[in-house]
Structures are given as C-alpha cells and as structure tokens.
C-alpha cells in the first residue's frame, strides 16, 4: 500500500498534570477529507497544533510520505505544505488583505501592485469574492475566513487544517465552504476538519477520527457509519437527548419586556441597532438568532443598561427603564449572562463566593457592620454549588481553576438569583461540553416554567430551535422578522441570517 500523505504515530502531550493527548495515531491520504470529531476538550485542537508545530509533542513521531519529519514551528510545517486556520483568526485588523497574506512570505521591498494582482487571481480561481485592498477590520467574519484560506493557498499548502470553521458562518456560507473543500481536495490536496457537529461530518468527510479524553476512539469511513454511532463514540455513553419541550401554546400574553424603536449608534455613526422593537412576554423564551456581530451584544447591553439607546424606549412591566442605570435594573430583577464570561461576567482571580456577590455587593444582606458577612456568603455559595452541581471543593475556590462549564454555572447561579423577572442569556453554552450544555438548557427551561421571561441570544441554531418559543432574527442591527418556532426551517432562518428579507425568503422557499 502507498504510504500515507501524513501519519501521526503514538503522539502524547501533557499540560502540567493534564493529559491532552495520549498515544494518538492516525493517518491522512492525499485527496482525502478527514474529520476530527470530538467534544470540547477532547484534544482535537491540541493534536492539530502539534502537527502544525505550535505545540511540541512529548512523545511520538510524524511521518510524511513514509519518512519521519520533525516539525518544531509553523514555519517548518508550512515548508512541508501544512497550513492551519485557527478558530480565532490570526489576522491583523489594521492591515489590508494583501498585507495579511504576504506577511512572512516576502522579502525586501514590497511591490504592492504585483502582490495585489497575484492575490486577486488566486481569489478568482476559487470564486472567492475578496478585494485585496480591503482592510480586515471592515470585513465580515465569513470573508475574513476566506482571507485565511487564501493565505494558506498562497503558501501553496496541500494539507489544510481548519479548526471549527463553520462556527462563525451562516448555513449558506458553510455550504460554500464545503464546496471549496471538495474543489480543493479534488486536486489531490487534503483537508482536516476539526468539529463537533455531526451533520457537517456526515456531509463532507471521507473518513472520521473520533476523539475522546485525549485518545482516538474511532477511525471510521463515512459510508460505514451513522450519526448515532458517532455520537455514542464521541460522548462515550448514550446521548442524553435534550428534551425538545413542547412549545407553550398558551403563552401568557402579558408583556414583560418591551423594546420600542430602539436605535444604538456606534462610534462610527453606523447604528449597531437600528429601530428595533421586541416584546418578551411572561414565561416566554424569545430566541435571537443571527451570525455573531450583528448587534446581539448591543441588544443585550441595552436591556441591561450597560449602554443607553440613542433613541427609543425600554419598558419592564410597563415601567419605563430607558434611562435607569445598571444597578437599578438589577434591583428590578434583570439578570444578564454575558457572552464573554471571563471579560464581562466574572473576576478570574477571585473565589466563587466573591464572584457570587459581585453584582449585589451593596446589598445589606451581605454586610455585617460594614464588612462582608463571610459566613453568610460562604453558606449561600455552598448552597448554590450543590444546587448547580458545580465541581469545586469549596466556596473559596478561585474561579480561574474551574472548567468553562463550571465557571458558567457560577454566573448562571448568580444571574438566576438576580433576574427575578427577566434573564438575558448571550451565548450561554458557547465552548462548553455537552454535559454542561444540557444542564444549562435545563436551567433555562426551569426558570421559564417559574414564569420568568428569557431573552436568549445564540449563534447555534440547534439551541435556538430547542429552547425558544418565538424566534427573532438579527441582521446588521435590524430585526429580519419574528416568528413562532414552528414557522421556521433551518433553510429559511439561514437566508434571514444572511440578510434576505421575509418576502424574498418565502418566494425562495416556495
């Protein structure tokens, strides 16, 4: 048999005491699309970073065409034809497309015109609509990804590694990406796809490597498997289906949160929210779908009071809160779980108990003669730790050491308490493993059952569909439409997320 294009053999990698990869071995052939499937923290990204020279393996060997190679840096990886597109793009926002692509690939005086022409040609060959003169900061995420791909193509990569490439794309953009992948591999190149989405795997991969807890636990041809087998391998036990609850037919019609004609102008005077009107009723989950960066964060912040609208009004239970400050809104019962928990949600170097008190530190119940009532606080935190099954030895544990899922539960516990009336969730399950996702979904449904109103922002359509009673689609700061869950299909919502209007969509759908 012909030697594999690349082969990994017995690779192990340890971070401090944690095993990231344990004796990982697999190969990739020329012209093959390989999917690397696994939950968050399964070690998929780590093994690929080793292949790309970003991490150094503690044990094991790498072979190219049957010959052993040493890869100590991305530079050496690129010389072997390997290129990797990170989950967080490594582009320079203040530079142009051309400057980003040629970084590290040219020497001496830069002939701008010449390189612009080259890149234009390359983009046209793969049908990428990218202008080499544009600044990265002005481009949508989907286009930035194309720039990353062009960068790899420019370096004449013939093994392209993509880390969760569809996480930031609309369904249609994702479909285009798949077209490219097939096109690219048809020319004898190979692609490794890191993902946790089963659907994608089934649609594009030739072969699937399933990883769990740092080890390979499956190496299967696509044609010989199905989604159920893959999910079992991935999780290691039967998939605990998230119960798709029946839509509440009879939503309490009493409005809780009313947003009327709210506009938020950004620094550039381009509105980040444009004339938005929404109502969330009591006991209702309103899902906000959309590709990230289309005004979701502004919407959450304007409800919580972190930013004030340029025009329009916000009402909670009929009371005008447009001008109220954050603290007043907390007192009124608005909870907020922000998208970036380490930046906006908690202080990493403080303990669980201290983080629990963070948003209500002024409250008399935490004070004892002007000092923090440590005993009371710890007792409360301990209770929450048990209730939310947060894996931590004590309330004094520093949150920095907790896993992402457990950190999120700490915030969840706090905000569920703060939000007596309304809880705003911005991407509550991003980057968490399935167990934690399940738990958080359960909490959201429970709180709704208590009659609270929920504003749920998510870029994961499955999450939106699983939880929402009604769904609004946000595109470039405008509402594309609000629908009952049953009215929408993935295809329809995808078009709305890509900026098509309702009329156009219904025509297309017919």
């Amino acid at each position, binding site marked *: 048999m012909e030697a594999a294009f690349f082969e990994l053999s017995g690779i192990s990698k340890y971070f401090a005491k944690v095993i990231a990869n344990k004796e990982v071995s697999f190969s990739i052939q020329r012209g093959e699309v390989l999917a690397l499937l696994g939950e968050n923290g399964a070690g998929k990204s780590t093994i690929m970073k080793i292949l790309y020279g970003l991490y150094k393996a503690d044990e094991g060997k790498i072979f190219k065409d049957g010959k052993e190679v040493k890869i100590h840096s*991305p*530079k050496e990886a690129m010389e072997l034809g390997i290129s990797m597109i990170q989950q*967080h793009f490594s*582009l320079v*926002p203040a530079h142009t497309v051309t*400057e980003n692509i*040629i970084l*590290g690939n040219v020497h001496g005086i*830069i002939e701008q015109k010449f390189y612009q022409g080259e890149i234009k040609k390359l983009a046209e060959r793969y049908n990428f609509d990218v202008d080499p003169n544009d600044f990265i900061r002005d481009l949508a995420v989907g286009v930035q990804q194309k720039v990353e791909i062009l960068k790899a193509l420019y370096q004449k990569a013939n093994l392209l590694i993509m880390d969760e490439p569809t996480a930031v794309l609309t369904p249609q953009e994702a479909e285009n990406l798949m077209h490219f992948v097939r096109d690219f591999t048809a020319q004898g190149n190979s692609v490794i796809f890191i993902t946790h989405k089963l659907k994608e795997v089934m649609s594009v991969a030739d072969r699937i490597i399933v990883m769990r807890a740092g080890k390979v636990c499956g190496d299967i041809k696509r044609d010989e498997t199905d989604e159920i087998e893959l999910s079992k391998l991935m999780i290691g036990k039967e998939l605990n289906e998230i119960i798709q609850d029946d839509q509440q037919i009879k939503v309490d019609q009493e409005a809780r949160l009313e947003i009327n004609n709210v506009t938020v102008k950004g620094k550039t005077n381009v509105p980040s929210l444009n004339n938005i009107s929404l109502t969330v009723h009591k006991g209702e989950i309103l899902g906000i779908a959309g590709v990230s960066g289309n005004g979701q964060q502004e919407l959450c912040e304007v409800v919580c009071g972190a930013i004030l609208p340029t025009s329009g009004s916000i009402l909670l239970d009929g009371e005008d809160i447009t001008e109220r400050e954050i603290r007043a809104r907390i007192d009124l019962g608005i909870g907020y779980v922000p998208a970036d928990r380490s930046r906006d949600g908690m202080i990493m170097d403080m303990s669980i108990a201290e983080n629990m008190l963070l948003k209500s530190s002024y409250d008399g119940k935490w004070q004892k003669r002007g000092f923090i009532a440590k005993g009371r606080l710890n007792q409360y935190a301990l209770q929450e730790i048990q209730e939310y099954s947060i894996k931590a030895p004590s309330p004094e544990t520093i949150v920095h050491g907790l896993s992402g899922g457990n950190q999120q539960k700490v915030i969840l516990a706090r905000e569920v308490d703060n939000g007596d009336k309304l809880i705003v969730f911005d991407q509550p399950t991003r980057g968490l493993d399935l167990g934690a996702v399940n738990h958080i979904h359960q909490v959201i449904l429970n709180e709704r059952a208590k009659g609270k109103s929920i504003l749920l922002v998510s870029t994961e359509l499955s999450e939106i569909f699983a939880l929402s009673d009604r769904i609004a689609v946000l595109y470039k700061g405008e509402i594309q439409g609000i629908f009952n869950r049953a009215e929408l299909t993935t295809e329809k919502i995808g078009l709305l997320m890509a900026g098509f209007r309702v009329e156009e969509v219904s025509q297309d759908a017919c």
Partner: protein
Amino acid sequence: MINLLSRTIMMGTPLLFGAIAEVIAERAGVMVTAIEGIFLMGAWAGFVGGYLSGSLTVGFISAILAGLLVAALYGWICIYLKQHQVVTGVAMNILTVGLSAFLYRVIFGVPITPLTVNPLATIPIPLLSQIPVIGQILFNQNILTYAIYLLAPLSYFMLYKTSVGLTIRSAGENPEAVDVAGINVLTVRFITVLLAGVMGGVAGAFYSIGFLGMFSTNIIGGRGWIAFAICFLGNWNPKGAVIGTLAFGFAEAIAIYMQSIGNNALFPNELFIAIPYIMTIILTVSRKSFSVPAKLGVPYIKEN
C-alpha cells in the same frame, strides 16, 4: 530668526533620533520607557569615551554600546521575562541616574572645573549651504543632523514599504499572526528595542559631546521623555515624529535664545519650554483617531 531656526533643527536632531527609535519599537508593540536612561547612559559613555581617547568617533561608538547595553537589559526583562514595561523602565531610569554619577566620579573624581571636550563641529555642505536662508538653516549643521535627514525618510520607507516593516507593524497589532507566519515575535521585538538602544545612545551623546562638550547627571533632563511624547504626538509614524520634533526643537531653541539674551522679565523661560508639553496634552485630548498599535505594551505570551 535664521539663527533660531537653525537652532531648532540642531536641538531637534537628538529628539528625532529618539522619537524614531521609539516609533519603530512601539510599532512592534514595545514601549521603550527606558529611553530616558538610554539617553543618559549614551551621554555618559559618549563623554567618557570621547574625553579619554580624544576622539569623538570613539565617544559615539561608546555611546552606542552603552545604549545597546541598557536596551538589551530592558528588552530582556520586558520581552523575555515579560515584566511590566512602565515599571521596568521607570526603575531603570532611576538606576541610570545614580549609575552615571557614580561611574563619572570613579573615573574622574570630583574635578574643580568641569571637564570639557570640543563638541562636534558644523560641516557646511558646499554649494547647498550658500543658498540664502535655507542654506544656513538646513545645510550648516553637524554630521548627526545630516544623518537624521537620511534616517527619517528611511525609517518611514522601512516601516511601510518593506517586508521587515510589515513584520514589525504586525508584531504590534497582532503578534499571533506573526507567530503563525513562522516568525519569532520575541526576536522581532527585541531587535527593535536594540535599535532603540543604538539610536538613543547616539541621541544621548549628542547632548554631551555633540553640543555641550561636557557631562553632568542632569544633562538629559527629561529629553528622553520628550522623545517618548513625540512618538505619541506623531501618531506612531515617522512623518508625525518629524513634525512633533520641530515643535519641541523650536520651543527649546527659543528657551535657549531667551536665556542667552538674558530676557527673563517679560516671559519666563519655562513658559516656552512648557508649550510643547501643553500642546501634547491638548492634541492628545482633542485628537479623534489614533493609530496606536493594538498590542502596545502587552507582552507576548505564547500558550503552551
């Protein structure tokens, strides 16, 4: 007036040396807060080398080595050990004040009259210096001023038209992008800091052996910080640095002029010296768009 403008150019020379060095390093993401100390050690080493050997060339070479040494220490602490740049710089600036005074006394004792050397002579450029007005202002200067005429456009060209410049600018905007492109971010940053050491050393020596012909521990008197401010004022661009330098150079020339004619009654000297600082604050507050490098002052820590 011609004299005043000629002075502006001359006094601006070391400032521009320092400011351009600062621009390049800050474009790569490192604030060289030790610039004051680099200036001072450059002034000290320049004088010692020049005085002991009797050759100004040796003096400038010593200044370059001293500047390199201070910069290397600063770069090692801030880039490789990833310590805080402001804290490290301030500490090193204080250290160099004591160090230069101490070493000066170790070598020369405490002389009754200040030791002096003959400073750099002006070299009128044939023909060009004969041009009325402009010739006197621009082409009757010393060799370092002529050097900066070349270095200023060269640094702009290097930063914006070459691959080296692209790498430097990328290192200050998004070091990950540089790393992924297979270039060592720390090396790029360290080299720009060393360059700042070389240029800052020369700038410092300009004060001791290029202009005054003597050394004292307060010879720099905050001019390193002015170079630092000019980088800011010039929006991290060599072009802007030239304009900023002219403003500060002019203010200093006026101050020296006022002092020399003994006119202290109407406007105190300090007022003229203060103007550029006040201008810096006003411009900083009023300016809308900054092109400050996104990762300025942030050490690059690679995961793993």
